């Protein structure tokens, strides 16, 4: 990591690599400004837009995996122990297959006249291909699928320790279903939820394969942007600076988690 910070602060060599020992902050100003024809610096929002897109995409993935994952985790946690183990086993099954292969599987399912289209048209639900592949919908499906276990497992772990007799007590005291969920269950497994969100958000920020394969690569993500600096553009300092900004965002997310947990501890007693 120190090397990364160091590389981001030195001058680039013309053919890739860096000139060690000559320091400059060009890489960081390049993130916000560009030099125009007259040599003046003007604001450049290209890179910010790419970062924003990645953040939104990661945020959406967190939301989607939570909406699907929370009920799943709760369902699993409320089964008898033997069945639980089996269900958890099924949940972790996709992890046995490489991420790339899983994305290719979705590619085959979603492509025009692929399996999904054939099934829907065979059942007379649609009459022509849906053309889902190479769109934001396809990216969302792919990411949600890939990261779902990362959301379910921590929530499930928290729920397993959760004492469900509290739920009965709440019902006895006249709480309705929504109140029980909001005031009893969710606060009880808050640690698991935050851990799950963080586990999905961080790799979601760096997601690289899914946007390229399922999204048709029409929009850059942070990962693709960094890769381009080390490869085609051969601007190592800028690549390192971009990676450092990404790292800062991850650290911020982790700090946020610590803050949320501290807050809970203060309220709890």
């Amino acid at each position: 990591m120190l090397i990364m910070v160091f590389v981001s602060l030195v001058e680039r060599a013309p053919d890739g690599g860096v000139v060690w020992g000559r320091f400059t902050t060009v890489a960081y100003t390049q993130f916000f400004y560009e030099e125009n024809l007259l040599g003046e610096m003007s604001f450049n929002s290209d890179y910010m837009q790419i970062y924003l897109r990645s953040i939104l995409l990661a945020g959406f993935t967190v939301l989607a995996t939570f909406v699907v994952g929370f009920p799943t985790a709760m369902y699993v946690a409320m089964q008898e122990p033997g069945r639980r183990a089996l269900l958890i086993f099924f949940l972790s099954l996709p992890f046995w297959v490489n991420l790339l292969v899983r994305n290719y599987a979705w590619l085959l399912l979603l492509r025009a006249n692929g399996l999904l289209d054939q099934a829907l048209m065979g059942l007379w639900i649609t009459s022509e291909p849906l053309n889902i592949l190479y769109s934001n919908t396809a990216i969302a499906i792919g990411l949600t699928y890939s990261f779902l276990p990362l959301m379910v497992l921590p929530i499930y772990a928290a729920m397993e320790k959760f004492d469900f007799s509290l739920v009965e007590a709440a019902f006895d005291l006249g709480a309705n279903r929504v109140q029980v969920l909001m005031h009893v269950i969710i606060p009880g497994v808050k640690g698991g939820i935050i851990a799950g969100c963080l586990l999905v958000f961080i790799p979601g920020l760096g997601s690289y394969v899914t946007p390229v394969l399922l999204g048709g690569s029409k929009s850059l993500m942070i990962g693709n942007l960094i890769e381009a600096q080390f490869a085609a553009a051969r601007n190592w300092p800028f690549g390192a600076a971009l990676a450092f900004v990404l790292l800062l965002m991850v650290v911020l997310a982790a700090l946020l988690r610590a803050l949320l947990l501290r807050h809970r501890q203060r309220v709890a007693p």
Partner: protein
Amino acid sequence: MKLRTLILATLLSAVAVGGAIAQEADKKVNLFFWPGYIPDELLERFTEETGIAITMDIYDTNEALLAKLQAGATGYDVVIPSGYILPTMIKQGLLQKFDSPDLPNGDKIAPAFADPEFDPGRAYTAPYMWGTTGLVYDSAKTDGELPQSWSVFFEPGPLSGKIAALDDEVEVFNAAAYYLGFDKCTEDPKEGQQILDLLSKQKPDLLLYGSSGTIDRVLAGEVAMHHIWNGAAHRIRNSVETARYIYPKEGITQWADNLSIPSTAEHPENAKIFINFLMDPKNVAEITNFTGYMNAISGSDEFLKPEIAADPAVNMPAEFADRLRPGRECSPAARDLRNKIWTRLKK
């Protein structure tokens, strides 16, 4: 066949004993290669004939190779850099001199490839495969044959939405530069702006940018036209009779891969034996038959599969020779401009 092999083996061992290329005591050679770029049978035959064992590592871009050698990677004896990146690698002292024309098979290098701009006199390289980055389309899905021009790619009309471009900054930028008649290493922001305008206008007509699964995409009928490497176009034609390859009249990028020996190689003599083996017309024809890319060795034609010899995508008709534009290394300023345009196109 058997006799040939025997003769070759005898010749090679004679060469080895004769001292032109002396084998090293450590009978190993370590390759650092592109994936799927050489048939396994040929590697096995090399080991059988010379007793030199081969290990192979894989990389996927020239930039990855450059970064690895710059970072001081050791243990690779033969690498396979493309022409455009060679001046950089030679200048930085990453490769060692071995004068491929002086190897036993050195006189078999085709004249057109004997003195390339990126390595005058072939001091640091021997030629491997070469090819072009053009367009493939299915003539059954268009109104007959299309003109030999980038216009069908940038102004597709009825094909809109059924086109894929390579997800490759350099190739996409080059295509636009050829079409507009600019130097592909332009440093002029005004020309850059025109290239960006052209690419932005084209973007909605594209179904996607994608460099992997190109063959599949055409075979599955997802796209009717694909910006593509010619070897892939050949493999498409093997399945789709009506597939056609375009050599645009505005210019087409020609890439040429080369065999080189890193200066950190541990078995440079074995590397020379291996490179010489790959400069034999029959051996190199086997590679062309496997990859679908043309080689640069005279006399290999008679060993080619008929469907390769007959496909214009691989065996380029001579009249297109003046459309070839060798890949070139651009200045840092030109690279920055290109990357800025690519980033803005996809922001």
